[in-house]
């Protein structure tokens, strides 16, 4: 599903050029659950952003489902993103002015899904994450765990092929964190490919494979013990 070859990414200011990613090669098969780990500043979030088409690469190739997307312009990236990729963030990033239902509905609005169909799909996914009873609440009225469940619901409502999760349990206690990891595991078992950035060894155990990074390079890839 994802094939990244010889990826280079630099950050340039007036005086300094920083190598964020240096000759990175990553291959993620469809249906895999991959965890990316490493110390702060190693480039794992940058890698995730590139995979999610939120950032571009300076050199190298990125094949997404065998389509070369490295040189895509923003509109094309946006189209590809909204139909294929769901995002889960550490700080949830729900829109405070929208209710739970409206937040989850948002991706369907931008893919022009008719209202009745939107309602059906949102309710289905809210049931799945067990937050249906808070559908008319605003994010500020929910706990951290509940907000992250909503964020997961939003990420999957469009049935994306790929979910990118950036430290999804970073702001949660262990109990809520486990719940979220359980949700992600269920999604993966249902066929969704997941790439997750994490600091937590505990969370990494939910994945099939761990990619370890240091100073912008992949230093190790290991299969997770069953």
């Amino acid at each position, binding site marked *: 599903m994802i094939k990244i070859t010889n990826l280079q990414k630099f950050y340039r200011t007036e005086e300094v050029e920083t190598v964020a990613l240096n000759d990175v090669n990553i291959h993620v098969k469809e249906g895999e659950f991959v965890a990316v780990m490493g110390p702060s500043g190693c480039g794992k979030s940058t890698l995730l952003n590139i995979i999610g088409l939120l950032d571009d690469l300076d050199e190298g190739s990125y094949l997404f489902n065998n389509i070369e997307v490295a040189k895509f312009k923003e509109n094309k990236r946006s189209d590809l993103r909204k139909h294929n990729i769901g995002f889960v963030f550490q700080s949830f990033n729900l829109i405070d*002015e*929208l209710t739970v239902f409206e937040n989850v509905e948002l991706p369907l609005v*931008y893919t022009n899904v008719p209202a009745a169909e939107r309602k059906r799909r949102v309710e289905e996914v809210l049931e799945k994450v067990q937050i249906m009873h808070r559908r008319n609440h605003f994010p500020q009225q929910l706990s951290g765990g509940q907000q992250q469940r909503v964020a997961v619901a939003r990420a999957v409502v469009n049935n994306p092929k790929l979910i990118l999760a950036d430290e999804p349990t970073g702001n949660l206690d262990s109990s809520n964190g486990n719940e979220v990891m359980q949700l992600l595991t269920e999604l993966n078992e249902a066929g969704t490919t997941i790439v997750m950035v994490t600091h937590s060894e505990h969370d990494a155990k939910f994945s099939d494979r761990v990619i370890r990074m240091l100073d912008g390079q992949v230093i190790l890839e290991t299969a997770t013990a069953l």
Partner: protein
Amino acid sequence: MIKNFIKSAFRNLWKTKGYSFLNIFGLALGIAVTALIFLWVENEMSYNDTFTNKKDIYVVKSKQTYGGNTFVFEATPGLFPEAIKNDVPGILHSVRVNAGGNTLFTVSDKQLYQSGYYVDPEFLNIFSPEFLDGNIKTALSQPYNIVLSETAAKRLFDTEKAVGKTVKFNNNEVYTVSAVTKDFPKNSSYRYEWLIDFKKFEADNPGYGLDNWGNNSITTLVQLEPNADLAKINDQLKFFIADKMNSKERNTENFLYPMERWRMYNVFRDGFEQDGQIKNVRLFTSIAWLVLLIACINFMNLSTARSEKRAKEVSMRKIVGAKKQSLVLQFLGESLVFAFIAGLLAIGLVKLGLPTFNTLVNKDLSIDFSNWYHLGFISIIILICGLVSGSYPAFFLSSFDPLTTLKGGKRKAGISGLIRKGLVITQFTAAIILMICTAIIYLQIQHTKNRDLGFDRSQVINTNIQGNMANHIDVIKQELIGTGNIEVVGISQNNVLNVHSNSSAFEWEGKDPNSSILIGFTFTDPDFVDALSMKIIDGRGFRPKFLGDSSSVLINESLAKMIQPDGQVSGKILNFSGQAYNIVGVIKDYIYNNIYGNADPLIIAPLAMGEANGIKASGVLNIKTKAGVDFQEVIKQIEGIVKKYNPEFPFSYSFLDDSFNNRFASEMMLQKLASLFAILAIIISCLGLLGLSAFAAEQRAREVSIRKVLGASVSRLVRMLNYEFLILVGISCLIAFPIAWWFMKDWLKGYTYHLDMPWMIFFIVGGLSLIVALFTISTQALRAATSNPTKTLRNE
């Protein structure tokens, strides 16, 4: 999707109630001001629209050149209308019109002054008033018929039927009401309360010179046939009078001036149409757009300043699939919602403000939603506001990079910060320009009010000589002096500020026979000069009771210098129509008619001379009171004496000071409106500044807290926060000053008597703007500087 956007818009509005209020109220104020101005403009532009024949109606103007100066009047000879109707093809109606002035009407015990005209009957064909009673055929068919307007009829007869009833006219003659017509709207020419057949005026004023081709004393109004050739008619009218007089002189031309231009363009200089009310229409339209621009800039600034708060929302929308166009539409839509709410609030503000505005501009303006123009106008303004105000924020907000937000970074101020500063500068520049212009208009009015007019207008009470007063005038004067409160009483043909008669037929020894000089003339009694404290600079005044002065005249300094450069001309002779008049004295120039102009040449002749020339014994008493008198008491005394000899007429009076001040009515209105709009512009700008400064303080809360912990004083922090905005206001001043100077230099040029550009005003206005801005910003800066730093730093 639209439902989602609208929900989001209202919830964002509610979430930031304070800023939303500033935004909406500022925009509402701008829209309200624009709406009021455009109601006024609409009223002005629709002047005379009530007349269905408007495009075919003309007034005959006379262009005359004297001494190198060209004057344009609306006066024509009494024979003119009939003659052109007979001789010039294409003229459907041609009528004589003379203003009857304020005349006393008596019905039973009711006495009222009403104003009206003496007109030929075809006046009714030209203006087609709506007859509520009576008809056009009989309305002016008899000399003692009188047509009343609906309001006049109600005032005199209440709810009774007026037609058929009689009214006493000037306590003299009895007229029969032959018709009642609907009032012409306020924005129309020739509004009347009464009309009488011109033939009656002709019969009552045999000495008026109506049969003299050389005497321009009445107005001619004309309605052309629908397809008349205007150019051809003007060609035939051009030297019509000279041809009738068999004269080869070509210094007088006549032409038709269309009703469509009467209101907007009826100011002539040097013989050419220059401008008129259109100047004010353009000025206020510009002010309207300026104030609206300021309000829209406010909106833009506050929206973009608050944009950081929406960065997360914009980023997430982009991540889940929103394209830039969709976000632009969303934010434009929000802006339109704000503009719509502001529009509704503006309508409320307009309705609230209309009564006061109507008093200020002396009109009956109203906003009417069954009128498509009004509805359409408000809708377009709301649309423009929404789109203009929302355009920049929409593109600004939709260009947020989701990645920067995800990384927790803030947008650098960069170009957006510069644009915001530019907008603040634009706002304040516009407001400062308005304030400077307002101040200069005010100063120009004061400058003219304080002008030495050549006479003393203080403590002078005027009352008209009417009814029986003329027969007892000497006794009245004596008794007035006998009260002990009055110094002197003089009589003049008109109020001293008005000279209605002039002629170019005066000659004197040494005058260039080829030169033609227009000279004003008026008639007074011997005490007039003393009553107005005028100064005699050569010779003497009239002797008491004009003993030996029946052929004497006084002239003013300007005329004296034309006769002889040193002005010492007493004893010289003036010739007029074969009669010789002895110049017995020269008075210092005094200003009449155009209070902004220079003193034109003038002759003052004895009252008796006027009467001998057919000018009726009427006129004005100029009652000079002693210093320190109780005016209420004096007026009671005057009333008592006047009514003793003239009991049938109600007593009325005016102060010469007030008459003078009323000359500034147009400029005062301009100045009051400009002040009002300048204040509103500053308020709107300050609303914006308040919001921006609050936001800036919020943005810098962390910095302020850290500085405080490190030892910065409150005053230092306030200075730091204020500095950024005061610089912007300072730059606004620098831009505004030359623009305002340019505008006002041009405006002042329109007045012969005008003040020099008052430079101090620029600095005073600039200083005041800085102080107002400082006060606005400081409230927010002080709040930020005195907040507890631990609260901010704890949240970090």
